[in-house]
C-alpha cells in the first residue's frame, strides 16, 4: 500500500487553522428495499465546528455516517468538501479525502500491540521488515501529542484493551493522516467518566485545530455541553438544526420523538414486606463481603462507577462466576447456586449487560430465544410442545410489544430495543421471583427506553423483586425504591426517598476516588468535573 512518508503523519500543526473547507451534504437520500432510510438530508459542517447528530435508532444517523465513510453510496444527493465534490466508491476513498468515521466497535487486531494496531496496514518498513524503531517513535509522538501515553500504553495487546482504549486506537488511526472531517458514532456509550472527559478534551482540541466534527450520541446533556450545533433526524428526515446554546434537552427529545416524553418515571408501586432475596456476606474474587436484601415488589438500584463490581455481583449471584462464601436465600430458604442452571431453577432471571454476547442467540428465532429458559416446562418426555410454546411466546412478545415481523424472525435482525425486549420476554416467561437487569437500556433509543421503564414498574407491581444495575443516574433515581452504591466490590451506602440525589450517589460512589490514584496512573478528576457524564441521561431531570 502506497502511503505518505510516515514522519509527517502525526504532525498536525495546531497553530495553523485549516483553510475554509466546509463539508456540505446536499439532498442525500438512501433507500433499502422499500425503506427510506434517508430522505433529502442537507447539512453543512464547518471546520472548527462540532455538529451533533441525534435521533432515535432507525432515524438515519448510521446511514448518514456510512455514506460519509464510503460504505454506502447515496441514491441521490452529493457531498462537497471545500467546494470539491466527493464521490466515494469505498471507505479508502473517504480516508484519502480526509474523511474519517469512528464507529462504536472499531476493528482491533487482537494478537498485536497498540502500536501495530494504530499503523495496521501502513506499518513503516525498511525493505521487507517492519521498522519497529520508527513505529515506536511515531506512536510515542502521537500519543504524547494528545496526552494518551498513560491511558493507552503502546505495548498493550489488542485483546487487552478496554472499549475506551479500542476507541482511542481507532481515533489515533484517524489522526495519523490528515483529517479534515471526523465523525464519531456514540463514542461515549462504553466509557467511564474520566475517559469521557479525556475524549471531550481531545474533540475540543481537534475543533480548535480546524477539523469539522460530526458527533453522534444518545446522551443529550453531553451533546449540549460539547456541540456547537445540534441536528435532529427523525425517520430519515432532517427535522431541525439548532445552535446548542439556544435549545434544551426537552426540546431535543421532543424533536427526536415527535412527542413529549412525560411521566416516564411514574411510580405507583408498593413494596411488600416479604423479602425475596437475602444476601449475607457474599464473598468472591471481586467482593470482600456483600450483604443486602430485596423485597417483593421492590426495585433496588445498584449505582457505582464502572469497575465497582456490580456486574460481577450479578454474575456471582446468578452462578455464572464462582462464589467463595456467604449465603443467598430466596423467599427465606437458603439456596445453593453453583451454575446459572441452578439460578434459573430457583426463580432468578438475568438480562446481562452484553446483550449480543451473552443474552441472545442471534442466529436463532425470536421464539426460540424467548422460550430458551423454560424449555423444560414446555416439554413433555423431552419433546417441546410447540403449540404451547407458540402460545406462551406470543403472549410475552405481545405483552412487551416486541416489533418483529414474526416469531420466526432471526433475533439478530431486530433493533437493539427489540432485542432487549426479547431477552426480557425470556425471563418474564420463566415467571421469576427475582429479576436481575444489568444496564437494561444501554444502546436503546428513547422510545424503547420509556417502554422498558414502564415494564420494570409493572413487573415490580406484580411482586417481582428487581435488581437494577445502571450507570445512568436518572434511570436509577427514577426507577429504584432504594439505591445501593457500590465501590471496589463493597456496598458503600444506601439511599432512598428524598435523600437520594445525584450528588449523594456520586459522593458515595467516588469518595475514595477523589484522593486516590486510579488505574492508568492519573489523579482522578475533581468531583464537579467527574460528575458530568453521570448527568447525561436521555430523560432530563430525575423526579
Amino acid at each position, binding site marked *: 500500500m502506497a502511503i505518505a512518508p510516515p514522519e509527517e503523519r502525526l504532525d498536525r500543526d495546531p497553530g495553523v487553522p485549516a483553510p475554509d473547507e466546509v463539508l456540505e451534504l446536499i439532498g442525500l437520500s438512501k*433507500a*433499502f*428495499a422499500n*425503506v427510506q*432510510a434517508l430522505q433529502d438530508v442537507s447539512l453543512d459542517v464547518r471546520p472548527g465546528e462540532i455538529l451533533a447528530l441525534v435521533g432515535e*435508532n*432507525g432515524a*438515519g444517523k*448510521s*446511514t448518514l455516517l*456510512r455514506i460519509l465513510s464510503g460504505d454506502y453510496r447515496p441514491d441521490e444527493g452529493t457531498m462537497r468538501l471545500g467546494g470539491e465534490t466527493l464521490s466515494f466508491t469505498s471507505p479508502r476513498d473517504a480516508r484519502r479525502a480526509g474523511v474519517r468515521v469512528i464507529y462504536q466497535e472499531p476493528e482491533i487486531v487482537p494478537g498485536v500491540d497498540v502500536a501495530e494496531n494504530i499503523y495496521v496496514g501502513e506499518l513503516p518498513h525498511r525493505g521487507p521488515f517492519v521498522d519497529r524503531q520508527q513505529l515506536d517513535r511515531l506512536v510515542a509522538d502521537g500519543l504524547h501529542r494528545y496526552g494518551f501515553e498513560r491511558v493507552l500504553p503502546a505495548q498493550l495487546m489488542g485483546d487487552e484493551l478496554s472499549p475506551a482504549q479500542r476507541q482511542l486506537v481507532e481515533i489515533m488511526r484517524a489522526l495519523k493522516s490528515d483529517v479534515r472531517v471526523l465523525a464519531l458514532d456514540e463514542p461515549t456509550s462504553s466509557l467511564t467518566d474520566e475517559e469521557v472527559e479525556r475524549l471531550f478534551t481531545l474533540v475540543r482540541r481537534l475543533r480548535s485545530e480546524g477539523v469539522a466534527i460530526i458527533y453522534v450520541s444518545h446522551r443529550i446533556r453531553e451533546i449540549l455541553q460539547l456541540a456547537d450545533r445540534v441536528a435532529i433526524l427523525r425517520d430519515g428526515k432532517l427535522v431541525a438544526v439548532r445552535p446548542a446554546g439556544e435549545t434544551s434537552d426537552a426540546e431535543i427529545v421532543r424533536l427526536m420523538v415527535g412527542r413529549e416524553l412525560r411521566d416516564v418515571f411514574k411510580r405507583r408501586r408498593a413494596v411488600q414486606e416479604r423479602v425475596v432475596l437475602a444476601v449475607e456476606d457474599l464473598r468472591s474474587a471481586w467482593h470482600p463481603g456483600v450483604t443486602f436484601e430485596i423485597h417483593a415488589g421492590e426495585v433496588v438500584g445498584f449505582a457505582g462507577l464502572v469497575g465497582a463490581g456490580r456486574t460481577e455481583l450479578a454474575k456471582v449471584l*446468578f452462578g*455464572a462466576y464462582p462464589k467463595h462464601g456467604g449465603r443467598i436465600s430466596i423467599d427465606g430458604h437458603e439456596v445453593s447456586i453453583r*451454575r*446459572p*442452571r441452578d*439460578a*434459573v*431453577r430457583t426463580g432468578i432471571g*438475568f438480562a*446481562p449487560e452484553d446483550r449480543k*454476547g*451473552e*443474552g*441472545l*442467540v*442471534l*442466529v*436463532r428465532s425470536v421464539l*426460540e430465544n424467548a*422460550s*430458551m*429458559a423454560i*424449555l*423444560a416446562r*414446555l*416439554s413433555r418426555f*423431552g*419433546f*417441546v410442545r*410447540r403449540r404451547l410454546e407458540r402460545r406462551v411466546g*406470543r403472549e410475552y412478545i*405481545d405483552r412487551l410489544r416486541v416489533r418483529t*415481523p*414474526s416469531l420466526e424472525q432471526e433475533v439478530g*435482525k431486530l*433493533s437493539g430495543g427489540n432485542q432487549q425486549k426479547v431477552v426480557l420476554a*425470556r425471563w418474564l416467561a420463566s415467571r421469576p421471583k427475582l429479576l436481575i437487569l444489568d444496564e437494561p437500556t444501554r444502546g436503546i433509543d428513547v422510545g424503547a427506553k420509556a417502554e422498558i421503564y414502564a415494564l420494570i414498574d409493572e413487573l415490580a407491581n406484580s411482586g417481582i423483586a428487581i435488581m437494577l444495575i445502571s450507570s445512568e443516574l436518572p434511570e436509577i433515581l427514577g426507577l429504584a425504591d432504594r439505591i445501593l452504591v457500590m465501590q471496589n466490590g463493597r456496598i458503600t451506602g444506601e439511599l432512598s426517598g428524598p435523600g437520594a440525589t445525584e450528588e449523594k450517589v456520586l459522593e458515595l460512589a467516588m469518595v475514595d476516588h477523589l484522593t486516590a490514584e486510579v488505574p492508568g496512573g492519573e489523579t482522578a478528576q475533581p468531583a464537579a468535573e467527574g460528575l458530568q457524564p453521570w448527568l447525561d441521561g436521555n430523560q432530563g431531570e430525575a423526579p
Partner: protein
Amino acid sequence: MSEIEAGRIKEARPPRVQAADAIRRLVGFVGAENLSLLFALAIVVVLIAAQNSRFFLPANLLNIGGNVSVVGLLALGETVVILAGALDISVGSIAGIASVVGALAVTSSGAMQLGIVGGILAGLLFGVVNGLIITVLRVNAVIATLATLSAFQGVAFLIAPNGKPVGVLDRDFAWLGSGRILSSETFVGIPISLIILLVVAVAAHVLMRYTQFGRSVYAMGGNAAAARLAGINVNGMKIAIFGLSGAVAGLAGVISTARTTSGQPGLGSQGLELEAITAVFLGGAALTGGKGTIAATMLAVVLIGTLSNGMNLLGIQTFYQDVAKGLLLVVAVAIGQWRAARAERARTRLA
C-alpha cells in the same frame, strides 16, 4: 402479523394467491436455503440422465441409496456436532473400532443383534470419551478429536486380533449390509442399509426439531455463553452430543462391516470423516454452529451420492470425480456466502 389477521386475509384471497401461498408453504417446508441444493441436484440428474439411460432405472437409484448409507450416517451425527458449534473428526476412527467390535461380537456369539448392539455401544463409549476430554480437560473439540482420530485408529488395530481385518461369515449380518426387502420379479428391492439410513435421518430430524435436546444444541451452537446463562447445561450437552455422534458412527461402522463382510480396523484411514463433514457444510450448516438442518445434510448426501454414481456411469476417472466434489463444496459455500451478504445488505437499511 397476528394469526387472526393472517387467517382473515387468507379467506379473502383469490385462488391464484392461494396457489402462490401453497408454493410458499412448500418452500418453507423444504427450507428456502435448501432450494439451491435441490436445484443443483436437478441439474446433476438432468445432465447424467441425458448421457446415460440407465441412470433412472430403479436398480441404479436404489444403488445410490445403498452406497451413501455409511457416509450418510456419519454425516447425520456430524450435523448435530456442527450445529452445536463443534467438530468431530474422529468419527471415521470410531467407525473402525465399532466395525471390529461388531465383527468380533458376531463371530463369537453368532447373533447378528449382538454385533449391532456391540458396535453401537463401542461407538457410544468412545464418543463419550471425546466428550469428557472436551469438557473435563477443556480441550478444544477440533484438537481433542484430532488426537482421538489417531488414538482410536490405533485402538481399532489393537482390538483386532493380530491387527488384521475380522472376516464375518454370518449371513444374517451380511443381509444388513447388502440385503434388500420387497424384491420381486419386477423390482430389485430396497437396500436394508438405505432403510436404516432413512430411519436414523428421520429420528435425527425429529430430535433436532422437536425436542428440548435439539433446541439446546441450536442454542449452544449459536451462542454458548447465552445458552449457559439461559440455564442450559452446556457441558452435559457436549458429552451427550459427542456420545450421540459416536453411537451413530458406531452404527455406520456396523453397516460398513456388514457390506464388506469383514471388521475393518482401517476404516478410520479412509477419510470418511472428511466426506461426512463435507456433506454437512454442503448442506449449508454454519461452521460456527447454530444454523443448519438435518434435511439439508441429507439433501447434500444424496447430491454427492448421485454425482459420484453418475460419474461412475459415465466412466469418469476417480481423480476427476474428486476434483468435482471439491468444486461442488466451494461453489455451494460461495453461493451461500453471496446470499448471506445480499441478505445482510438488505437489512442494514435502518440502524
